[in-house]
């Protein structure tokens, strides 16, 4: 046996060229199957990567306590309103009394227009203490964070998000300038780097941070807070911390067992889990879809190979006459079927990569290429063998004498 592989490869490729329409149809099933497998593998890895990146941006080991909704009765109107029961001292008590807590950062946030000269922008104004910057990995590109002393003295100073800076100042130096927040002139002392949207859905680039004390006394007159970021020490399980935190707050709020909580607690993992479950569901659907596609593709190749073999009786006859054995005929037609299937597989990989790039760019996911490629090629080859073996065996049943003299 000489020339063999190159010879069969060329025959298969020539068949592809000669019977373009037919072969393309046979290829398509495999192509779509591989395409969905590769594209989905890449895209889901991209999504996971994006989630990982955002976890990093959001901050490590964080548990978020938010004031809950309560059913308030008053002046004839009954409605859900935000509970006003979460207080600054709750945050202090959590830090002092709950084991495993590394740090806490209370905050109060509200959406409100800010103004600079004649420009207006709706921003999220958050009163925070200086601990928040460290917990949420907030890095600055200009200026500085505010200090504990500035917080204590309730000074009117702000750290602004990148879009706020970009909209108001462009090339101007913002440090030391005053913007209007709640009709309160506020001096800008720092500008955050670009961070994008965080997991709570908040665009962090439209954020204006002011000291919490200043917020509660000078911007708004409140004695409660909206929430507390609690950072667990490394090595503590967030799930058990969450439970401990819940019962601790219930205790200090004197919540009776039958009473509904006036706060809610969630962690990064809660949000991640929903997203990852989504990815997993889509992944199961993709596997089902590509399995069906592989089956259809295999049947397509099977049918085309049967047709091809009955059309090429003369070829089989003359090959047998000049010394081909049944085994050689099987090898020839199975390699043809494998090559057709592989061409489909390679087409699918190319198409899959194309889709990956388009989806990742549109969806803003980092472009990641997974190792589904090798798997896709192995499956394509296996389908090629399975689809080709029966038609090839059929081909050996043509006896040269009968084929050539009919």
């Amino acid at each position, binding site marked *: 046996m000489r*020339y063999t592989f190159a010879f069969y490869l060329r025959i298969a490729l020539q*068949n592809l060229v000669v019977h373009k329409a037919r072969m393309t149809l046979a290829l398509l099933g495999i192509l779509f199957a591989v395409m969905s497998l590769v594209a989905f593998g890449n895209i889901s890895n991209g999504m996971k990567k994006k989630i990982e990146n955002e976890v990093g941006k959001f901050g490590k080991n964080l548990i978020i306590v938010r004031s809950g909704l309560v059913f308030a009765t008053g002046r004839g109107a009954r409605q859900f309103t935000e509970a006003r029961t979460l207080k600054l001292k709750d945050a202090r008590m959590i830090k002092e009394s709950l084991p495993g807590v590394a740090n806490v950062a209370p905050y109060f946030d509200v959406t409100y227009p800010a103004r600079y000269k004649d420009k207006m922008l709706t921003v999220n104004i958050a009163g925070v203490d200086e601990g928040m910057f460290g917990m949420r990995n907030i890095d600055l590109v200009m200026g500085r964070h505010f200090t504990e002393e500035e917080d204590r003295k309730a000074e009117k100073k702000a750290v602004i998000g990148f879009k706020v800076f970009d909209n108001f100042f462009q090339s101007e130096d913002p440090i030391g300038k005053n913007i209007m927040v709640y009709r309160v002139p506020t001096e800008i002392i720092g500008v955050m780097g670009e961070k994008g949207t965080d997991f709570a859905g908040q665009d962090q680039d439209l954020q204006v941070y002011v000291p919490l004390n200043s917020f509660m006394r000078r911007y708004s007159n409140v004695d409660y807070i909206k929430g507390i970021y609690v950072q667990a020490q490394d090595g503590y399980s967030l799930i058990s911390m969450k439970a401990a935190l819940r019962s601790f707050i219930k205790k200090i709020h004197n919540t009776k067992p039958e009473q509904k909580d006036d706060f809610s607690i969630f962690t990064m993992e809660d949000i991640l889990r929903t997203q990852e479950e989504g990815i997993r569901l889509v992944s199961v659907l993709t596997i089902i879809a590509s399995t069906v596609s592989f089956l259809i593709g295999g049947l397509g190749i099977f049918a085309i190979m049967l047709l091809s073999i009955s059309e090429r009786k003369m*070829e089989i006859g*003359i090959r047998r*006459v*000049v*010394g*081909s054995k049944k085994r050689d005929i099987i090898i020839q037609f199975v390699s043809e079927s494998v090559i057709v299937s592989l061409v489909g597989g390679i087409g699918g990989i190319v198409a899959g990569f194309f889709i990956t790039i388009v989806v990742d760019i549109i969806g803003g996911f980092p472009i990641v290429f997974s190792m589904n490629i090798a798997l896709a090629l192995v499956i394509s080859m296996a389908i090629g063998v399975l689809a080709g073996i029966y038609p090839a065996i059929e081909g050996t049943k043509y006896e040269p*004498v009968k084929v*050539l003299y009919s």
Partner: protein
Amino acid sequence: MITLRNIKKSYFVGDRELPILKGIDLHIGKGEFVVLMGVSGSGKTTLMNIIGLLDKQTEGDYDFVDTSVDGLDDERLADMRNSYIGFVFQQFFLLPYLDAIENVLIPIVYSKKDIKHPRDKAKTLLGKFGLEQRIHNKPTQLSGGEQQRVAIARALINEPELILADEPTGALDSKTGNEIMDLFRMLNEEGKTIIVVTHDPKLASFGKRLVRIEDGAISEDIAT
């Protein structure tokens, strides 16, 4: 080279036996040029298939290149065909999607012989038959005579001792047919054993020996 002893071949139609060959005794030596003549239905093609190891006799013994081939299996027969016999058919049987030189090279794929530089050899053969300008043409781009010459080059590529041609001029006009027969004569002069099977009496003069088959038996065997 070829010794047939009392070769019989029958087909069964239902339970009725249909004898095709009724006891053929024939010896063909190395270097002979035999024209095997007979009308349609005389059994000449069946005889050729048996000689060419494509079919098996119902009775009798067949020694090919001095060994009995009666008990050999399909695989062994395929190897023998590949090594010892070059086939030429009326319909040429070239593969339509291969060009001339690749058609010539088909037997090499299955060859156990160590043919040196088969591509060069194929080119030389095609050149010898006046096809040097045609080596990359597909069969459809060749005339009948050219296709038959490609088929003969294919029969020769693996250096067989015997050329077995079944109605090689049947699809050609008489001038081209004569050219093909001249080519066989030339190959015979180079030492190849040639058997041409035909119904055409005009071809008898090209060979050195005429064997006539009538109704499944040899009716005439003469030197020409």
